[in-house]
């Protein structure tokens, strides 16, 4: 972390480092040059000092000769001392270029000192003429020294000519170096700053883009930011948020769908009930009447009629009772038997009903009144219209984790379009006289009950009979449906 801060610090440090480097180089260079200048100046000053000291000596000598006081003598001694010091200093200036001249120079100084002493000696011995002569010689030597100084300076200039020129050249070069350095640093810093700003703004841009996508409602795009700073952290957090929001939304959608399905199933149930109620006015009165008729028929010795009436009553009761809750396959098969018995009475030889039931599978649960409408459908289409009647096969078989229920007739069959319209749950206008619950209603209820689409299959072709297969999960209905049905 702290990456952006570190980046800024790095940039600052680099700039600072470069600046310090340049400052250091320039300062050391300056110092070096200055010390060299000083050395050169020192040389000139020393030579000049000799001239000054020699002239001073001659002046002091002159003053002393004119008025030989102690003060003047002291002055003379002092200037002589100074001249001696200057001479020693000059010794350091020796180099291969001026060796000869410098030796001469120092000897001239010696000569001057000697002549001065000689002049003093003559003065003390009162030989003023000799003294004056020595003085004039000293004066001449002093003049020679001045000239020699000029010559030496001249030589110096010639010797150091290359040196001076190189100094000038180097200062020009330094200027050029400054320009190059400026260009280089400017270029480097520009690039560096560009890369640096890009490394900050690019992730931010990406993040902005992602945020825009999110605001448009696209939650499925992954937010990916390749950087190693806080932005990347932000992006990761953002991405997690996106995933969470996405999950929540899909959950809400699922719930809404569920709610919708529940509503539908409720409506269907109501419709079924309404139908059955419409068709059966005052059912209890009807049951009782039918029961009573059954007993009466039995008492009158018409057992067959009695059984028939009992079946009709049972069937009606079942219809009214079981419609809104799950029943076992066993109950369903039982009711189916009653229904078939009634129909056999009606169609006699024309209806041939064959069953093949695996008793071990009868415990499975299924919505009430699912098989009867299908059989009824088969009777209406495959038996009723045909003079020689038809055969209906009913089979229950174990099929792994499901129980397969097959209802097969040998009627004229249906075309593709009809099958599709049934499976797509379009209400079909019922032909003839069913108990009231249509095929489509059954399909819908089965699917809702199990929460599966693949519970019902219809195989048919024109003239080839119709086979309806139900594949009922042994595990029964899923939990949510349970809940839903409880509420309904």
């Amino acid at each position, binding site marked *: 972390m702290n990456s952006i801060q570190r980046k800024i610090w790095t940039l600052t440090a680099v700039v600072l480092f470069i600046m310090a480097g340049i400052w250091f180089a320039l300062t050391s260079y300056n110092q070096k040059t200055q010390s060299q200048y000083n050395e050169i100046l020192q040389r000139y000053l020393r030579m000049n000092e000799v001239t000054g000291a020699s002239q001073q000596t001659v002046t002091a000598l002159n003053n002393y000769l004119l008025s030989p006081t102690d003060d003047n003598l002291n002055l003379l001694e002092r200037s002589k001392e100074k001249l001696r010091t200057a001479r020693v200093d000059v010794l350091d*200036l020796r*180099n291969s270029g001026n060796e*000869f001249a410098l*030796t001469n120079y120092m000897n*001239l100084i010696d000569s001057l000192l000697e002549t001065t002493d000689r002049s003093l000696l003559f003065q003390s011995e009162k030989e003023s003429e000799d003294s004056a002569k020595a003085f004039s010689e000293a004066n001449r030597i002093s003049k020679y020294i001045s000239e020699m100084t000029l010559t030496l300076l001249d030589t110096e200039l010639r010797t150091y000519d290359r040196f001076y020129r*190189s100094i000038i050249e180097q200062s020009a*070069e330094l200027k050029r170096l400054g320009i190059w350095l400026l260009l*280089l640093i400017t270029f480097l810093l520009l690039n560096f700053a560009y890369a640096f700003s890009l490394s900050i703004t690019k992730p931010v841009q990406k993040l902005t883009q992602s945020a825009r996508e999110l605001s448009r409602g696209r939650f499925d795009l992954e937010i990916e930011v390749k950087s190693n700073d806080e932005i990347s952290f932000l992006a990761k957090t953002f991405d997690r948020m996106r995933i969470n929001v996405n999950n929540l939304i899909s959950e809400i959608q699922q719930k809404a769908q569920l709610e919708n399905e529940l509503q539908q199933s409720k409506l269907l149930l109501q419709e079924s009930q309404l139908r059955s109620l419409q068709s059966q006015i005052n059912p209890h009165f009807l049951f009782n009447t039918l029961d009573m008729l059954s007993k009466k028929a039995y008492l009158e010795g018409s057992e067959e009629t009695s059984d028939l009436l009992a079946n009709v009553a049972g069937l009606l009761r079942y219809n009214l009772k079981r419609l809104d809750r799950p029943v076992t396959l066993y109950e369903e098969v039982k009711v189916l038997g009653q229904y078939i018995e009634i129909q056999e009475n009606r169609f006699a030889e024309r209806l041939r009903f064959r069953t093949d039931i695996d008793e071990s599978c009868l415990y499975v649960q299924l919505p009430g009144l699912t098989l009867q409408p299908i059989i009824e459908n088969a009777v209406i289409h495959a038996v009723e219209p045909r003079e020689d009647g038809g055969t209906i096969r009913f089979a229950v078989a174990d099929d792994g984790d499901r129980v397969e229920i097959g209802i097969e007739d040998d009627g004229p069959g249906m075309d593709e379009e009809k099958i599709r319209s049934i499976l797509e749950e379009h209400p079909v206008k019922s032909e003839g006289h069913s108990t009231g619950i249509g095929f489509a209603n059954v399909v819908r209820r089965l699917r809702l009950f199990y929460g599966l689409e693949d519970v019902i299959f219809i195989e048919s072709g024109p003239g080839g009979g119709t086979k309806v297969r139900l594949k009922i999960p042994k595990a029964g209905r899923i939990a949510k449906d349970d809940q839903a049905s409880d509420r309904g």
Partner: protein
Amino acid sequence: MRKLAILAIGIVCTVLFYFTIVSANKAFRSDWQLPRATGQEQAKYRLVLITRELETPFWVQVSGGAEEEARKRGASIEVWGSYGKNQEDFLKKIEIAIDAKVDGIIVQGLDTAEFKNLTKLKAAFYGIPVITVANDVPMADSLRRTYVGSDQYSAGRMIAEQLVSDMGPAGKVILMGDSLREYYQQQRLNGIYDVLNGYPDILVKYAETPEAKEQAIAATRDQLNGLPDANAFVAVNANIAGAMVQEIGRRSRVEPYHIYSFDDSHETGPLLLQGKLDGLIEQDPQEMGRLSVELMIKWLSGETVPLRTEGYLTDIRMAKAANAR
């Protein structure tokens, strides 16, 4: 595209970096070493060669010979002097040399009182040996250790003999000399006179002139006016020869005259080549320089003590126009 940009930036970076480094290298390179104080031991002897005629071909050769010899023997020598026979400067240089306590002075002799005073009194006072070169000053007057150079007397004789052999034993001869009357000139004249006096039919006329060109031309004109039928001219001083030939040439053709001179100078060499001079005494200046240094060092180191007071003579020879061409 991105790769291209990176490549371009890289190249620019490299170029800038290269130039910066090169420039920095130049700016901070410290090869300006000052000529350091040489720790080497000083040359054994410090000699000075002093002349009044710096940069003349003759003295260039003298100093060349001297410097070479000094280098060979590990002595240091400097050539000082004045230009165009400036005596004041010349004498000052001698005085400086004495005051600077050089080990030995090799000097072009000057036959004046100041010169003699300097060498006789001051140099002797400081104990500095003096050797005269090319031009001599008598030993007694200058206290020089020795003289190195041509024998001016025999040079005079040589030229006179040549003159007689060219001109024949009869004729009129004009001698032109420098009005400074230096010692070496006197020697030359002595030599000439000694030969020509043996021929009674040869009329000799001597004229003096200052060295300046205009005056030399005027003097030549005077002599030509005074002695229009002169047969021969002898320039006792080489520096007069040029002006003399020029003036003669203005009057008539130069060739019929027999004209002779001593020494080669700026003017005499070409004149000889052109055939305007009939003969020229050539000296050996290089040997003079060399020998004088050798003798000085030998004397200083005590190898040859004492030096021959009459001098060490170097070769002279007669260069004739016929040979030169």
